[in-house]
């Protein structure tokens, strides 16, 4: 079980976050920020979802929208309410938040102004995307999230 892996679907779009759902009759007003997780083709055409996460490599909907993103088996554990970062340029997928977990943490920046010798997460150049994605993920989180620790490394 990994937190991040890569899908072979790649396209030109800036990174974004999506909330996972298995409910294909989700209210339309929520779908633009969500990924429908499917194994088989959904009964009705799932208009409006940001992407379709597919557990079945061979899944085809025959339509351009929403895009089908095959989910590697290492990430097949994701459930309703989890939040995933999608980086279309590279195909990278990262599970950012798990609704059922008691130990969610959010990195807001990888930059740091110290160089501790024991650091397990050495600083990278400040990457605006990290903060934006963390910020965008917050409204998608469950309002009753039991534990959330924003990790700010500065």
């Amino acid at each position, binding site marked *: 079980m990994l937190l991040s892996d890569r899908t072979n679907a790649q396209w030109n779009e800036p990174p974004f976050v999506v909330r996972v759902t298995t409910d294909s009759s989700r*209210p*339309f*007003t*929520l779908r633009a920020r969500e990924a429908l997780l499917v194994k088989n083709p959904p009964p009705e055409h799932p208009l409006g979802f940001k992407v379709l996460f597919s557990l079945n490599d061979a899944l085809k909907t025959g339509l351009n929208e929403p895009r089908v993103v095959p989910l590697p088996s290492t990430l097949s554990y994701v459930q309703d*309410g989890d939040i995933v970062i999608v980086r279309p340029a590279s195909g990278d997928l990262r599970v950012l938040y798990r609704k059922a977990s008691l130990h969610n943490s959010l990195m807001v920046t990888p930059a740091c102004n110290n160089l501790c010798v024991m650091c397990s997460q050495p600083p990278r150049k400040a990457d605006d995307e990290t903060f934006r994605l963390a910020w965008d993920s917050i409204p998608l989180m469950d*309002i009753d999230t039991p534990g959330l620790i924003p990790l700010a490394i500065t």
Partner: protein
Amino acid sequence: MPSSLSPSHHNFRPLEDFLPQNGAYQLLPFRFVRFDTTRYLLSNFVGEHCLVESETLHELVSKTLRPSSAGYSALKSRHFFFESGETSALHLLATKYRTKQAPLAEFTSLHMIVPTIRCNTSCVYCQVSHKSSTDQSCDMTEEAADRALDFMFRSPSSHLKLEFQGGEPLLNFAMVRYIVERTRQLEKQTGREVSIVICSNLSLISEEILQFCKKYHVDFSTSLDGPRDLHNHNRPSAEFDSYERTLAGITRVREALGICAISALMTTTQASLSRPREIVDEYVGQDFKSIFLRPINPYGFASRAGAITHYSTTEWIEFYKTALDYIIDLNIRGIIIREAYAALLLRRILTPYGTGYVDLQSPAGIGISAILFNHDGNVYASDESRMLAEMGDPHFRLGNLLTDSYENMMLSDVLIDTLTETMTEGVPGCSDCGFQPYCGSDPVRHYRLQGDIVGFKPTSEFCQRHMALFRHIIGILDGGSAAADVLKGWMY
């Protein structure tokens, strides 16, 4: 120690010895109403209820209800009868009744204040004849505001609430600022607390206003009638896109004050009736955790606009049931959103606590639960009373802040007589209705629609609406399903 106890052990008498003899019980006071084709709803005067088959009701009254029958325990535990020789039921009922009436002693909690009736939007159902956004003769003076606050602090309520209404209150932000600052000052002097809300269309939200509200702990309430086209149809403005401004305002308020600092409600028009799910989806999409589905009030533009706003009570009930059932389904599927009208009905049905909803209590909430200070200093027994005066009938005006004393206004004949003559405990149709403990009198609406403060309940839309809602909600509660659990989570 014996290794097993058999039922025939000579130290133990059989269960039946402890049960009362058949028929050895006395009835406690209760009302009932036919609930559906086979059942009745029984309720007692402290508000406990029981749904029973017709046969059970008749057995109960004829003293032939047996301890072994299914309804016996439910009816006994909810105090519809007591076994001879017991007094605990009587003590409990008396205490419960006192608890149920206790909120009355809180007296007036909601104080509505109108800093201006200028407005920049022309909602089709507007109940106030608003003036254009630049006519300043419709603004409240500092003297009237001072007296309004003195009046508010006369109330003994431990939950004072100050609510800005209009017009559009932000068109006279200077007066809003004045009133809020003075309120917080008076709080310190008196050691009391007031919660403050501004009802606004948010079109005029600014950094200055947001910082002020943050500093002084002021919340917002706004109207969101549904998706863009529906909202703009109901609430058009000649000056801007109403929907855009409202959404932008909601975002800004949330960012400055937090997600809980703003709530929204909708008003149903003819155009809304066919779109209950879309309206709910709009609220879900905008991350609201609560929606208030309100029928239109028969005042002001709403009564003049005719076809735009007019619909029958039956149509509205169907709309509401569809929306509520959809909302419950969403909750079961993991989307958390509460319907506020159902929440207050549930509070009425399942608890003895006050709801602050003045139209659904007996005695009516006019004056004694809520009161309104208009921009010109006139004091009204309720928001509906003000709307009636705007239409030309000042019947429920209690007086004016600048000329009348608190005592004169709160002891005025119109207020006292209306309260006493319309109590549901004593009026025909209501006094023996099974829904009476949960319902209320709405004298202003009955006066408006039927020409009489008591009203003729068989043709009253207020009665028709609430009986349908109570039936629907109690029906769900009694079903004991996941839907019932969702509803029970809503009353607090």
